[in-house]
């Protein structure tokens, strides 16, 4: 069809510059701007001199080591806190010199300073620099802050040849949104940062971002009325009228992203002109979807921007470039809801509880490292009976037809009467048992370190068959409609039918300790190679995979199209069951090896940080967090509004869901 043909109504809109003009133009543009850019930001002084000399002692406590930065009325020093005599604790000290002469104005400034620092000191978010101390000494006020090893994004931008990878920028943006939503939801009043720009965002040595400079210094530049807090070029129109609501920060984040992606410094351009100089002009490789997000954040009218940082974060996390990012896309939101959760009861054992409890018919069954299988009354937590094995129990019991099955590191599978705790039969294997048994089709299925999957008759305890795998079987079998799915330490996942014939095998790159879970369509499983795998249930073909930053030992749970699974990188992940796309993830302070349990609209899991978490399954928002005194590797059992979970502090807790 020729273009003049009236029938050819379809065309392709050139959102990207056409190939004839783009590459040359792009380079020329960014080249032209660079010299100007360094002029404005100023060549970094080689040697900076502060008001305080090196070695100066403040408050008899902080020894000045070096000067980090000097501004008009302020300076930042690197200092050592001498209070900690055994270790070298380094901090950053911000010095602010009061310019006001009138005593009452000065008093007011000091009061403001104290009030603001007090607010800052109560903030607790990994993306906010911590405030350790503050004091006033003569004309100067000081803020003692966490020292962040790293550099700010302006420096990162200056040092990068070419363009920064989109995934990195998206990851930073998601993290900044996380900090902003934390600040914006601050009680009693939201905190508006008001000055998001590359130089106020630090990137630490782990690639995590931290916001610095809460504009406190600005309070000291008094005298001029209506001094705008913010930075020309990054601030939205309404901020010039002194207005500040959360959408001010959204705009400034948009401006920061525009700068990072296009490498065009907004301070050198007419204000609010972002839409006139699309990112594609200099950087044609940015995805259309990300451009949409940035443009929406940069809408002139605040009503057309994202309504909240959460909304913008959701848009960012749904990008394909966010999916590819392994690592730091979001922090866990800090605990805002309470530790007011009180256990219904707790039961003390003689050793750690690593095994996950099972609840059946009003009784909780759990194995402890003290070698015993316990039965407790689910309602009151009272002891009913215990059965001693000859090894620690780390596998979880299962109950079927009035019999409790549990494997022990003494190599034996035990079948014990659920009521009386009396032994029915035992099934010895050749090595230790960490795999948890599952009962179905009149058989109990479990794995052993002797590399076999066992099928044992429930009533007689006779072995119906064994299936030899390629490695130790610590994964627990999943019994589906058509097959039994199990992994092994050699990294192979098997689909075996009830006659011990292999339907299919899938080979991961490293061991599979995680237990598979199967739906009508897919089998989900984690591996030590850091991946969560979605496998086609009938062929075992890899449908999708999602990479975390640590071994995935935790076993997935599936609920309403979401796969939930923990990783040793400290996060609980929520992935789209169809595509493997990240929906949200929640960061704890240590490894998540516990397997999540879904109950109602919430997901429950433990972390090695000692906490048991309850999150909203859809959003990943924290519902509550309960702190125990030891790592929680046990997986929760959720039954009728009660969460049962063990901890290395030797307690089994019953918590209200």
């Amino acid at each position, binding site marked *: 069809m020729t273009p003049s043909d009236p029938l050819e109504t*379809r065309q392709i809109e050139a959102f990207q510059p056409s190939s004839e003009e783009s590459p040359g133009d792009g380079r020329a543009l960014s080249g032209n701007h660079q010299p100007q850019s360094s002029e404005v930001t100023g060549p970094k002084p080689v040697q900076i001199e502060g008001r305080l000399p090196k070695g100066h002692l403040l408050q008899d406590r902080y020894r000045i080591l070096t000067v980090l930065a000097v501004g008009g009325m302020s300076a930042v020093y690197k200092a050592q806190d001498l209070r900690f005599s055994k270790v070298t604790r380094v901090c950053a000290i911000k010095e602010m010199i009061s310019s006001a002469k009138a005593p009452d104005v000065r008093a007011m400034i000091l009061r403001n300073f104290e009030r603001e620092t007090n607010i800052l000191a109560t903030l607790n978010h990994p993306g906010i620099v911590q405030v350790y101390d503050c004091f006033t000494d003569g004309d100067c006020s000081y803020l003692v802050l966490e020292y962040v090893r790293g550099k700010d994004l302006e420096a990162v931008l200056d040092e990068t040849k070419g363009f920064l990878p989109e995934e990195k920028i998206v990851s930073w943006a998601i993290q900044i949104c996380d900090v902003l939503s934390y600040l914006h939801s601050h009680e009693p009043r939201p905190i508006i940062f008001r000055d998001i720009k590359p130089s106020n965002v630090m990137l630490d040595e782990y690639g995590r971002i931290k916001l610095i400079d809460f504009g406190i210094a600005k309070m000291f530049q008094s005298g001029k009325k209506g001094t705008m807090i913010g930075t020309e070029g990054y601030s939205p129109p309404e901020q010039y009228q002194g207005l500040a609501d959360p959408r001010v920060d959204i705009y400034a984040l948009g401006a920061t992203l525009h700068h990072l992606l296009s490498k065009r410094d907004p301070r050198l351009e007419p204000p609010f002109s972002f839409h006139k100089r699309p990112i594609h002009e200099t950087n044609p490789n940015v995805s*259309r979807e990300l451009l949409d997000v940035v443009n929406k954040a940069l809408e002139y009218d605040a009503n057309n921007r994202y309504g909240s940082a959460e909304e913008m974060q959701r848009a960012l996390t749904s990008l394909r470039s966010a999916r590819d990012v392994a690592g730091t896309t979001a922090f866990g939101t800090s605990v805002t809801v309470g530790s007011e959760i009180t256990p219904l009861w707790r039961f003390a054992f003689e050793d750690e509880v690593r095994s996950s409890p099972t609840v059946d018919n009003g009784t909780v069954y759990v194995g402890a490292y003290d070698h015993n299988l316990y039965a407790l009354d689910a309602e009151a937590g009272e002891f009913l009976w215990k059965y001693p094995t000859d090894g620690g129990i780390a596998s979880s019991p299962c109950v079927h037809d009035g019999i409790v099955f549990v494997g022990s590191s003494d190599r034996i599978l035990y079948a014990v009467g659920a009521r009386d705790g009396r032994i029915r039969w035992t099934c010895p294997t050749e090595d230790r048992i960490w795999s948890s048994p599952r009962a179905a089709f009149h058989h109990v299925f479990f794995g052993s370190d002797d590399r076999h999957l066992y099928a044992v008759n429930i009533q007689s305890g006779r072995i119906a068959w064994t299936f030899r795998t390629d490695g130790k079987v610590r994964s627990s079998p999943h019994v589906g409609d058509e097959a039994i799915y199990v992994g092994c330490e050699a990294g192979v996942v098997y689909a075996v039918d009830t006659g011990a014939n292999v339907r299919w*095998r899938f080979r991961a790159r490293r061991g599979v300790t995680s237990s598979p879970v199967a739906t009508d369509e897919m089998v989900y499983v984690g*591996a030590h190679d850091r991946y969560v795998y979605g496998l*086609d249930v009938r062929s075992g*073909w890899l449908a999708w995979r999602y990479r975390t930053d640590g071994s995935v030992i935790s076993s997935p749970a599936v609920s309403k199209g979401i796969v939930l699974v923990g990783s040793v990188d400290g996060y609980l992940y929520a992935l789209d069951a169809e595509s493997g796309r990240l929906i949200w993830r929640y960061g704890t302070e240590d490894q998540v090896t516990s397997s999540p349990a879904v109950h109602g609209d919430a997901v429950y899991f433990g972390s090695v940080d000692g906490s048991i978490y309850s999150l909203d399954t859809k959003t990943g928002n924290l519902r509550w967090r309960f702190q125990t005194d030891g790592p929680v590797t046990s997986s929760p059992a959720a039954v009728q509004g009660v969460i049962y979970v063990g901890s290395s502090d030797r307690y089994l807790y019953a918590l209200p869901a």
Partner: protein
Amino acid sequence: MRFFRRLLGRESDSPPPPSPSAASETVPLPSRSEVGWATDVGRLRDHNEDTALVVTAAQDGDSPFPSFELLVLADGMGGHRAGEMASSVAARRAAYHITRQSYLPSLLDRQGDANRPALTEVLINAVQSANRAVSEEAPGSGTTLTCALILGSQAYIAHVGDSRAYVLTEGGLEQVTQDHSVADRLVDLGQITPAEAAVHPQKNVLYRAVGQSTALEVDTHVRKIGPGDYLLLCSDGLWGLISETDIVGLIRGASSLQEACEDLVIAANEAGGRDNITAMLWRAPRE
């Protein structure tokens, strides 16, 4: 099931072999998936810029394996016969990539392997490979590209442009893919209504197409197709001309999938046939 049926078949001794119709009443034959397609130049154009490509592979026997079926639809655009060149290159390149990356290795070793790309990755790579091929072999042109790889009864779909994939169930027709047209985007943004989109001047303007840029975003979807349900791929020459109700009626009313596809093309021609028309249908086994 099949195993038992075969055993029973062997044991059945005395009665003479029943007629095929009688057999299907007593012991139903194993249900297989079906496929049909039709493409037509339409009434007003002088050549067809649509390409339909079908690959089906199955393995049966003692250890059956899910069937592998691939439907690819591309609708090209560009002057001087570049449009059909673009759609043909894109469809062939995508099919080549998908079969080579997913099906051919399984003939040597059926085991799933983390060292092979995941199916969703294979599909995205296939469309991107098609994108490069179109830029090289038919520069200045472009094409839509919708690929549906069906493994057993699970469909993995990759999509760019405004051709569409629908799933038809008892509950009705569900559009799986999203059009990458400016008008559709405006509807998404709440700027115009769907009714306004249908007559919008930019109705046919694509903001994403194969062959247009080096970096191409590819949408992917995974859908389980229930027993007896349909998957429909079609170009805008079909969905732009006849209503969803008519599409459903024609599919349900036909005696075979091939007939259904032909009926759809005829209906689009009767409605004006303003553009090239392609319909591709796949139906899941009834179990």
